[in-house]
């Protein structure tokens, strides 16, 4: 019934508008922008978004207790699960090639600074009631990906991308154990893979805006942790993934008149 009403309204609108007369037409019809845009060429731009990570860190309690009391002192396994989140802001450079005629293939390099961080407390049973504050930060993300897209409308590209990624992480385990302060720190550059997708809208001959979702998987790695003050050295295992939703703005060159 609702569809019928809408159809009737549309027919009425056409009737009331009357015939188009020559005087109403422009002398020369402007070529619509959508007909001019081609995705072939290169682009550079920036992006801003939100990032949400999940990290399982095993075993910070053993790291602390075995450092103070000797290897094998800790019984059982403690895994600290953290959910760091924050903002990502960065830039991207890429090139596209459009063919057949609505398909697009390309390559993109992207890098972001990030404020992602999270923390949690874990109990240290052998120093009861001591606890350790476990903190995780990711301050840099970069990726090189292939992009595949389909021009759904003349100026809207639906795309998927996948490739290699790197995250720069920092871990801190701090607190005091039976009255002695400790501060472990570990840094890493971790490589993994990324898949994602989104849509990009070209709103002028050289500019496009995009919205995109990316999933990063960095697997499980061992991180070396050191406490220079107490001259302790140990390790924790970290499993992590990151999800990002971001909006981007690109400037296109190499096509559309360049």
């Amino acid at each position, binding site marked *: 019934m609702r569809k019928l009403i809408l159809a009737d309204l549309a027919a009425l609108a056409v009737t009331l508008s009357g015939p188009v007369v020559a005087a109403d037409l422009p002398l020369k019809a402007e070529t619509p922008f959508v007909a001019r845009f081609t995705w072939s060429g*290169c682009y550079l731009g920036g992006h801003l978004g939100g990032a949400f990570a999940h990290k399982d860190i095993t075993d910070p309690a053993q790291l602390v207790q075995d450092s103070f009391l000797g290897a094998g002192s800790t019984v059982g396994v403690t895994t600290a699960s953290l959910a760091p989140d924050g903002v990502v802001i960065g830039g991207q450079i890429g090139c596209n090639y459009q063919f057949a005629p609505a398909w697009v293939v390309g390559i993109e390099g992207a890098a972001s600074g990030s404020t992602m961080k999270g923390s949690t407390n874990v109990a240290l049973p052998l120093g009861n009631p001591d606890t350790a504050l476990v903190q995780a930060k990711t301050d840099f993300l970069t990726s090189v990906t292939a992009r595949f897209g389909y021009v759904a409308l003349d100026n809207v590209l639906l795309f998927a991308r996948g490739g290699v990624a790197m995250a720069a992480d920092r871990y801190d385990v701090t607190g005091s154990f039976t009255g002695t302060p400790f501060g472990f720190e570990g840094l890493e550059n971790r490589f993994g893979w990324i898949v994602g997708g989104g849509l990009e809208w070209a709103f002028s001959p050289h500019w496009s805006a995009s919205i995109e979702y990316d999933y990063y998987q960095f697997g499980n790695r061992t991180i070396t942790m050191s406490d*220079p003050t107490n001259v302790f050295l140990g390790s924790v295992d970290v499993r992590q993934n990151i999800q990002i939703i971001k909006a981007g703005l690109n400037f296109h060159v190499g096509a559309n008149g360049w």
Partner: protein
Amino acid sequence: MRGGCGRFNRPFGACRLIAASICFAVLVGCFTIGFAPSANALPSFARQTGQPCGACHTDFPALTPYGRRFKLLGYTAGGGEFRTTPFSSNTGAAARAELDKLRGYAKTMDTPASSGEREYVPPVSMMAIVGYTHTQAPTVAPPTDPYMANDNVVLSPFSGFWGGAITNNIGAFAQVTYSAPDPLSALSGTPADQFKHTWSWDNADVRFAQTASIGALDLVYGITANNNPTVQDLWNTTPAWSFPYAVSSLAGTPAASTMIEGAFAARVGGVGAYTMINDLLYLELTAYRTLAFNQQNSLGMNPFDGPGLFGGTAPYWRVALEPHWGRHSLMVGTFGMYLDVHPWLDPSFVTGTTAALPQSDKFTDVGFDTQYQYQGDNYWLTLRGSYIREFQRLDASFGDFAAANPTNLLNSMKLQASFAYGSDNRIVFTGQYFDIWGSSDANLYGVDISTGNALTPNSNGWTAEIAYIPFGASKAIGWPWFNARIGLQYTCYNQFNGTSVGAHDNNTLFLHLWVAM
């Protein structure tokens, strides 16, 4: 588009007198000492291309768009009154000249006469920098011989170059440099001092370049063989050719720098492939290996002044997108390198070994850079920015107690603005903010005496420079055989090697005369 090489009014005529006075004052006291190796606007390039220096340089050695294409094409573009190469056929040179014409980077490109009618002059040049250094507090520690504790006037470096074409497709930039010896206080007093040299090879970049068209793609592609990562780069945002272009080696400079910022300059050999696609997208991949101890020593480099030896091949990558429209040119890019470095086992050479540690330190350097350049009627405006992030996995240094942490971070950032006014009698104003920061590490950077805390590598501050270049755009007196640059540079430190206490003591005034012939 104007090539920046026309003759303009000379509103700074009085500056010539001032500059001449400064020049005289500097020359009066010219003696010997070392500066960091610096770069060049070579008269041999001017002889080859027929272009005045200002066609390629906004400043020495900062490049214009045309200068970048000249380098991209392997230093082989001709057009001058002298034959381009000892072996050239006219066809290749003319084709490249035509390519440059079409791209509009050269204001004029004289039609070359037949090669046989022109004289061949080998593309050799020489360069010298004479400078006066004053630091806020004396920075040459006793014993200062052969210098004074402060206010030194010295001549260094003195360099000889091959700069230009070898064949139609192969060209080279190769430098041999004399650097004056260090003050006595800089000697270690160990047997390793025997490997210090005054003459050494310096920046070298031998290139093969060719052009091609594949479908819609217009390519310039080539091969580079060089000895310093980023020396082959086209933009002055990467370390080898970044500002400041001349510095005093007598003044204190921050101790920490990333590996790609010259740690292996002239200690490596690398071969790579590059291409510029549609005059827009630059791609390069180069592989480097360190020279062996004896090779470095034979070439005049003290091996123990370097970090050590690579465990394998170190890859270097570069991607840059350079859109340009009208008089505007923008570049956004990334570069980086991965290095697996085995530190020297005994840098003092007390045990007589030149071996390296079996364990290695791993460095991942990732850099981002950008440049905007605008050519006005009588000026160039250039804005540059670069950021390098180095992740250090110090398995060897941590195990050897040279580092207190198994992993560290080191960052380096530069933000710069340069305004080059005038064509001949060009005045160049440059300002740069620099910042180095990273992880604290007691073994690498020491301990704060007052707090007992581990120091960081942090240093930051400003450098301002005013330079006068008498011959920029016209084929003036001395062209194409001579050029000069006079610079007055001041560097101010807010933080120096992890502390702000006494940082200003390192503030440096550096007045220098740079001549090339």
